[in-house]
């Protein structure tokens, strides 16, 4: 990520810093090759079986899995077809859009056309945000038969109890936040960096979580995330997804900064 880019597009600084900073371990599998973003593997631990276990440094560049069955790992809560389209088509489109935005910016900069470079900011925000958000999302999911579902324990559980009253209250509030999104967007459990407290935020479209907040757990509320299986019954998707939340990942993110 060039520093000139960051100077040219200040609005994106937060998001891009998040993807580059080593301390943001959750972002570490957002891989860049010669300044290009690539689609991360869905499976970070195992080639043949989709596990979703967080192992940020292990992300490879092999692209979408050729093991078609892997995408079924979150069934019956999220269908294999949804997972495959979501990863190989939607996420890939954000990666492509991000790379194309970065290229346009680099080219404009090389010609000294900073107005043109800055005009790409909305595309960079949208596609860069889409890449970051989906990368975080895959990592905070896991098959129900493995690390998915249940309730958090340890320090994370304590923090949830103290900031929301109970895990149940937290889950209800998150579902209310998800249901209240008007249009496309995401809901996040976040940690306030300075206060250290937990909170819920929603973001429109692909706006990434930034500023004082560290994203711990993200849930995609775009229609493409559930429509093939749940159609208009999005409340059912919001209920089902708790069976495949990877609390190990969320706890690791909570413990990082």
């Amino acid at each position, binding site marked *: 990520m060039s520093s000139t880019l960051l100077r040219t597009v200040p609005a994106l600084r937060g998001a891009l810093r998040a993807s580059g900073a080593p301390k943001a371990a959750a972002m570490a599998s957002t891989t860049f090759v010669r300044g290009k973003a690539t689609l991360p593997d869905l499976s970070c631990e195992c080639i043949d079986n989709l596990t979703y276990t967080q192992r940020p440094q292990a992300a490879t560049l092999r692209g979408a899995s050729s093991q078609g069955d892997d995408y079924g790992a979150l069934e019956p809560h999220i269908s294999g077809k949804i997972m495959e389209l979501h990863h190989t088509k939607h996420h890939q489109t954000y990666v492509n859009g991000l790379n194309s935005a970065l290229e346009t910016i680099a080219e404009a900069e090389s010609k000294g056309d900073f107005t043109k470079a800055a005009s790409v900011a909305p595309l960079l925000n949208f596609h860069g945000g889409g890449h970051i958000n989906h990368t975080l999302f895959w990592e905070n999911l896991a098959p129900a038969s493995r690390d998915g579902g249940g309730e958090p324990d340890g320090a994370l559980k304590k923090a949830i109890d103290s900031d929301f009253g109970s895990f149940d209250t937290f889950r209800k509030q998150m579902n209310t936040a998800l249901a209240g999104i008007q249009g496309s967007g995401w809901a996040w459990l976040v940690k306030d960096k300075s206060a250290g407290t937990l909170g819920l935020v929603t973001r429109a*479209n692909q706006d990434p979580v930034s500023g004082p907040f560290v994203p711990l757990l993200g849930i995609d509320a775009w229609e493409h995330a559930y429509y093939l299986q749940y159609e208009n019954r999005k409340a059912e998707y919001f209920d089902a997804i708790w069976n495949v939340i990877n609390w190990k990942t969320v706890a690791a993110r909570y413990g990082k900064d």
Partner: protein
Amino acid sequence: MVNIASLWQYLALQAPLHSSMSGEPLNLTKMGLTTYTLPALPYAYNALEPHISAQIMELHHSKHHQAYVTNLNKALESHVAAVAAGDVAAQIALQQTIKFNGGGHINHSLFWKNLAPAGTEETRADAAKGLVAEIDRTWGGLENFKKTFSAALLGIQGSGWGWLVQEGGHGGSLRIVTTKDQDPVVGGDVPILGVDMWEHAYYLQYLNGKAAYVENIWNVINWKTAEERFQGKSEDKLEEKSEL
């Protein structure tokens, strides 16, 4: 019957609401509360096939549009109650809900009417002589207009709508605008054609291939409706039933 512009005026809370006499028990009927109803489609659910599947049309109309109507009515009812109770904070809190669901109702009502089964008279651009002449003047031809409109539709980030409008009122120049989520066309612009770019509008059939949806929708555009709107002769009304 109330027309779309006056509903929008209401939604924007520019029109004063009825308020009850103090001390009287809350009587929504007396306060002039009307409820909106889901309009029937002017064609069968499978009528737009193969361009838009019957399954999409049925869910889109009977579930999605119905939800906007139901939630609009609920919010309006709460709003009337909040006005009666003098609860300003509650009134403010309801504005966004009214805008979202009212917009969803307006937008879908316009959308159904500017679609028609492929191959019918209505879907021939000949049915919109005046509009097409103006499109020619503005974009140098129908094909170039379609290309420009399609590009605007595909450029929408997230959920939203693309519209061909007459800017500022009837007789205004033609313009392509997009609105996010369920924001309706505002500022006195007259909607001529609307295309729903929410994923629910195409996903079951086109999956992530929204460019194909946009390409195919031109086969089911109702140019007759577009011409009527362009000429200021349309009868875009929202159906409502009074509680009285």
